[in-house]
């Protein structure tokens, strides 16, 4: 089955139609998606800014990251669930939206950025945890993350506008 075929299949399911046409559930899911951005991106930016060496320089990187992580992860979980539901209800229109694909590509890149960070420079974090300005590779990871999240929110908003 082609990608388009899969999207068409999803779009034609009963659950997709029901969600798309529901009077209350769809707006609630959209509202929750916006709130989840504040919890996820709204919190990850502080870690990114610390990694970049822009704020909270007197605090260890781990001291910023560790306590924020559970709240951030809750936010991202809510984002993915509500985003997944929105996609499910509008699969065919997503397929035809260049902003949808831009958003997906940037989400994958954000995932790659996180994976590279944790598998490389983060392994030696104890060496630079207290440094006001982390090593270049860590600072770069922070800046890339900030740029990607701005891009993801932008593409997401444009997608909804042109759908």
């Amino acid at each position, binding site marked *: 089955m082609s990608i388009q075929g899969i999207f068409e299949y999803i779009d034609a399911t009963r659950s997709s139609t029901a969600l798309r046409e529901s009077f209350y559930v769809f*707006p609630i899911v*959209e*509202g929750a998606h*916006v*709130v989840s*951005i*504040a*919890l996820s*991106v*709204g*919190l990850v*930016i*502080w870690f990114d800014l610390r990694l970049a060496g822009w*704020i*909270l320089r*007197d*605090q260890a990187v781990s*001291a*910023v990251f560790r*306590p*924020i992580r559970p*709240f951030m992860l809750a936010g991202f979980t809510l984002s993915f669930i509500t985003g997944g539901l929105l996609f499910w209800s509008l699969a065919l229109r997503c397929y035809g939206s260049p902003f949808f694909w831009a958003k997906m590509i940037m989400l994958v890149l954000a995932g790659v950025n996180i994976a590279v960070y944790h598998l490389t420079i983060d392994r030696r974090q104890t060496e630079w945890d207290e440094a006001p300005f982390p090593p270049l590779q860590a600072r770069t990871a922070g800046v890339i993350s900030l740029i990607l999240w*701005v891009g993801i*929110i*932008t593409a997401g*908003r*444009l997608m909804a*506008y042109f759908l």
Partner: protein
Amino acid sequence: MWDSLYPYFLWIENTHLGHGIRESKWTFTLSEVAHLLGLTVLLGATLLLALRLFGFVLQGKSVASIAREVMPFSLAGLTLTLLTGTLLFTSEATKCWGNIAFRYKMLFLFLALIFQFTGLQKVARADEQHFSPLIRKATALVAVFLWFGVAIAGRAIAFF
């Protein structure tokens, strides 16, 4: 009272600015994007401060010094959101006038702005011992409730 405001809303919508934004698709759309980005920073800053007031994060640093670093981001986010929000409003003022979610949003916004620059600022900038933990937590909850109220009511405008 709200009814008597209608002529003003109509006037705003018919200004050059209102016409201009309405007719330029990209100005409107980019304002919406910037509105959401500004909001994300503002809500994120409010959340971080609230989590610190609860003692969940960054306990090694005083609330006041975190507020000093985070407040500029709140202000930048707030400024961007208010500016773009005004542009969006100008382009469809009469639609907003008739929208119940918009009225709730303005009520929340009014209260949130007052609280941001009175209660929240006072508690966040004070010495740790100056306010009881209960007051600090209540302040955090009120700030989060009011700003998220603005965001949720704002999202709801599109559904009425």
